[in-house]
Every structure is written in structure tokens, then in C-alpha cells.
């Protein structure tokens, strides 16, 4: 009788431990895979994929909600890398979510800028500096060329130029 109680107790403890561990480890593993996927994305934070940034897209891919071929800035090489990591089929880039193009850089025409500060809000990497009624400028090293600053600009003073090869 005692043996049965002890063994049942031990089994119960072990079961509880396993249950706890399984829950813990599963979330950790998912987070890890999301991190790995995020590592492979180009970090332009452009939201062309339909998610608000690279990490949300990575989370959606891991959760199986999004296919791996929506990242236009990453292009085929990113799709290849994702396909290799996740063992999913490498589909061609879904061009409904944008075309792959060479790296760009936003440039503010400072003669036209009226200092409305609307672009500051939307820049996902805080690459525009300025203040209301003061001229804005783009930090070239930080700009990812995501184009998100274009629509809010009321005077259309932001241009995208090709990124110089060595910057």
C-alpha cells in the first residue's frame, strides 16, 4: 500500500514537473525561432509584408500565419535562407507585397521642408531628426529606405535615392 502511495506520489511529482517544463520550454523555443527568423530578415521595418515590422512578421511566420515570401527588401536570398531554416518550400517573392530593389535612402529636400514633424512619428527606426517648425533631416546611417515617411509628408519633400555602395 505504502509503495503504491509513494510511487503514485513520485509519478505525480514527475508529471507536474514535466508539465511545467513543457510549458516553459515551448514558449522559449518559439521565441528562439522567432529570433532566428528575425535575424534573417533585412530589418528595413518597412511593413510592406503587411505586418508592422520585421519582428511581427517573423512571429507571424513562426506561428504559420504568414508565408515566407513576402519580404520584398530581402528578396530571393532572404526567402532561400528562411526556407533553409524553417524547412519550408522556397516560393518566389510575392510581388503583391512589393518588388525587390536595390537599397535606398530617404533624403529630405531641406528647401521645401516646412517642419511639420509628421514624418518623425512614422519613421520606424527614428532616423529623422527635427522638431515642429524646424527643418528635418535624415540620419543616413540609420535610414533603412522603408518609404514609410513618404505618405505623411504634406509638401512631398522626401525623395528616395540609391544608397551609395560604401555607406
Amino acid at each position: 500500500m505504502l509503495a503504491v502511495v509513494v510511487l503514485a506520489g513520485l509519478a505525480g511529482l514527475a508529471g507536474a514537473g514535466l508539465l511545467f517544463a513543457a510549458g516553459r520550454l515551448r514558449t522559449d523555443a518559439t521565441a528562439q525561432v522567432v529570433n532566428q527568423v528575425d535575424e534573417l530578415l533585412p530589418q528595413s521595418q518597412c511593413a510592406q509584408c503587411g505586418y508592422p515590422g520585421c519582428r511581427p512578421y517573423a512571429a507571424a511566420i513562426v506561428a504559420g500565419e504568414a508565408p515566407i515570401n513576402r519580404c520584398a527588401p530581402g528578396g530571393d536570398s532572404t526567402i532561400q535562407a528562411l526556407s533553409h531554416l524553417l524547412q519550408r518550400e522556397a516560393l518566389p517573392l510575392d510581388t503583391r507585397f512589393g518588388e525587390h530593389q536595390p537599397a535606398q535612402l530617404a533624403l529630405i529636400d531641406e528647401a521645401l521642408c516646412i517642419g511639420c514633424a509628421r514624418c518623425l512619428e512614422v519613421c520606424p527606426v527614428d532616423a529623422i531628426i527635427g522638431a515642429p517648425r524646424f527643418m528635418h533631416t535624415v540620419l543616413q546611417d540609420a535610414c533603412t529606405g522603408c518609404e514609410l515617411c513618404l505618405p505623411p509628408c504634406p509638401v512631398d519633400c522626401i525623395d528616395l535615392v540609391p544608397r551609395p555602395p560604401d555607406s
Partner: protein
Amino acid sequence: MSAPLSYDPQPPRPAWGVRVEPHKALSMGQGIRIAPLPRQVRVPLDLTAMRVAEAIVAPGDSILTGQVIARFPGPGGNAICAPVTGRVRDIAPCPVPVAGNYQARCISIDTAGEDRWSEDCKPLEPAGSLSRENLQARIARAGIVGLGGALFPTADKLRTRTPVNLLILNGAECEPYITCDEMLMRDRPERVIHGAAIMLRALGARQAVIAVESDMPEARLALKAALAETDEPGIGVAVVTAKYPAGGERQLIELLTGQEVPLGGLPGDLGIVCQNVATAAAVSDLFRQGRPLISRIVTVTGNGIGQPGNFEVRLGTPLRELIAAAGGYAQPDCQLYMGGPMMGIALDSDELPVTEASNCLIVSTPEEMAAPRPEFPCIRCGECSRVCPARLMPQDLLIACMAGDAERQAALQVDACIECGCCDYVCPSQIALTARFVQAKAQQRHWRLDQARAAEARERSDAHARRQAERAAQYADGPKADPASGEQAMKDLMARLGQRDPTDD
């Protein structure tokens, strides 16, 4: 120093490297000859993209030999001195004999046939009386750069932040055909030793060793004899096995001290500074004769040249005039190479100027250099791995290069490749490995830039998201004040106004 220096004539034999037919006797028939003054010189301002000098002369200016004509920005005070007397014709981009079909901005100077020296070119006071900083500043101002090929400013290399306990003078000229350093050590050993002594003082170091290869007994004996005549303490001669590429900086340090320079590190991390013997001789010329860096010794060799040999030639001299000084072409259809057959580059013109990096000009006949043969697939024999002096695995790197996999290339440490060409030399499938690795190294730079930029963008985007979340929380907090108290406040207001309750209506 963990391992003792090997001074004995039976030095350790490295496992890496290849033995190549030396072809050195061709250009060692006679001593160093002085090439005649050129009619026009072109002095490049940006021979390496990392260091760009600004001209301080303008077209039309008359200049004297040894005068400073350009300065490098920065605190080092590095300069470029005029190699001839004449008049500046123009400052414009011109092709130069470096890899990559590169055009450098050059100062073109027409010479007037005379050689008048600038007032500044006076022998300097006994070097022993000058401070370290003073010695370094004078070397910088005289435009002395490493003559081994890397063109790094010598003064900058002497300004070490960590203490140096060994200066290595690299005379291990391992590449076939090239004999300019060997002839220098044979003809002018006292200058090498004098320059080494000044460099020791400029470094604040005690010990210097002049490294020669085991197949240069004349140079070793000349240096030993010259050493016996001077009273410079702490300078010795060491012999390393004649095996290509024993004269590579990292390889030479390994052979002499048994230590490996870490990947991404510099010899300074081991307390070692490495200088070419020709650089030491240039330092000696500066202090003894007041002569800044205006010339260098160039080996002109190959079966296609009339009288092969070593020439002391003014920098900027067109190769055409150097070839004329060496007896001209022996036959019309010769191919020119700058540097040795292992690492040199093919040139498409003899109008290019001699630069500080021009150690050897090979004028080869069509039979002399093997034509490129077709590549066959890699059979994974591993021969390239065995000879690689950087201990890489070229066969695996080849696959990573063909796949364009920058991450894999980084993991296989393509950046450690010294581009010596040993793998190409032994490959039974005649695969152009080094060319691919050179390309991969350039891509690595871009890849790392992209990686760094992505990491920064990720950080910035996270910070942006965090800030927006905080702000949203703040706004949510602001007007939130408990609804009950809001109602109460409204009632109070109404009471104060002495009006009826608006809800009564």
C-alpha cells in the same frame, strides 16, 4: 618572447607553402644601377583608397626635388615629396599599376633635365640626439611608406601605443623573380643597418632582427660584415627557410618567433613591428643624406627585357622609360607584370608610373608564363589545405564562394587569406581559388556592413516601438481619472455655478 629567435642557418621548415622555381639569377648579374632621370613623372595622391593626399602645388608651379608637394590629412603629418625638379603640368586621374584597374589622381610633373634639390633636403643632425616624436615626425614628413607593398606610412607604424620588444626587418623576399631587397642587402647593407638603428630609437625598442632567406648567403654575409663594422647594439641577422611565402608578414613572424598573429590583430599585439629592409634603407638615406622618399629599387626582369637587373628609379617614372633604361624589349610581343608571378598583376600598358609599391616589373615572353588552363571540378584532394600558410580550407571556401554564402565564408575565415596564390599553384584542377577569395573578401566587407546596419535598425525599431507603447500608456493614463470622481467634479461645478442639475432636464 616565448620562443627564442632562430639565428642558425638550419631554420625550422614550415609545413605550409610551396617551393617555386626562383628565377632570381636572371636579374642579379650586376649591382644596383641608377636609372636616368625621367622626362615626366606622375605622382599618385590616392594610391590606396584608405589614404588620400591633398596636393599643395598647382599646375604651372615650379618645384624642386624633395619638396613637399602633397600632404595627407590627419595628425600624422605624412607627406609626399617631389621625386624630380620640374614644372607641374596637371593634376588629373591616371591609371596606376595596382590591382583593380584603378585610376588615381596624379600630379604630373614635366622635368627640365636638371636635378636641383630643395633647401629642406639636408642631412639631419645625428639621429641619436632626436627624441622619438621628432624622429617619427621627420620620417612622416619625408613621405616614407612601407616599400614591401602595403604602402602603410612608416611613421604611423613607429608610433605604437603598446611597447615593442622586437623589430623585424623583412628581407625574406620569397617570391620568384624579385631581387630588389636582396640586391639592396648585398650592395648597401650598412644603410639597412643604420635605418634599423634609427627605427629602433623611434620605436623605443631594443632588439632588431634582419630576416633573410636561406638561399641568400651573399646578403647574409654582407649584413654580417657590415654589422661587425658598426657599433649598433641589438641588431642581428636571422635566416628563414626559403619557401614561398616565408616573407609574408604573419608567416615571417611565425617562423622567427613561433607565435601567430591573431586573426584581425596586428603584429603589435605580440610586441612586434615588421618593416621592409628597403624601408629601413630609405630611413637611413633620409638621416644620412637628407634624401626623402623619392626613389625606390625596382627589379626589371623576365626573358623579354634586354638587360635585366635592379634599378634605382625615381617614383613616378613611366615604365616605358624604365624598360628603355634596362635595354628595351627583347622582342615585340611581351607581356608586363607588376610584382612577382604569384601575386603580381598583368599590366596593359607601359605608360603606367612606378609607385612605392612597384618592387618588380616582369617583361615576359609568351612562352615564359603559362597560359591559363581550363578549370576542372574540385576533386577534394586537400592539397590546397596543406600548402595554405593561413591554415584555411580553400576547398571548402571554394564551395562557399560558388554558393555566394557570405556567412559560411566568414565562418571559414576567408578574411585570413593573404592572397599568396599557393592554393592555385598546387591545384591539380587548375581552379582559380585566390581570385575568388579576393572577391569574397570584398563582399565580406559589404556583408558585415549590412549585418551591422540591420542590427542597428533592429535596436532602433525596438526602441521606437517601446517609446510609442509608453506614450500610448501615458495618454491612456492622462484623462483616465476615475469616472466616479469625474461625476463628482461635475456636480461640484454645477453646485458652484448655483444652477440646476443638467441631468434634471
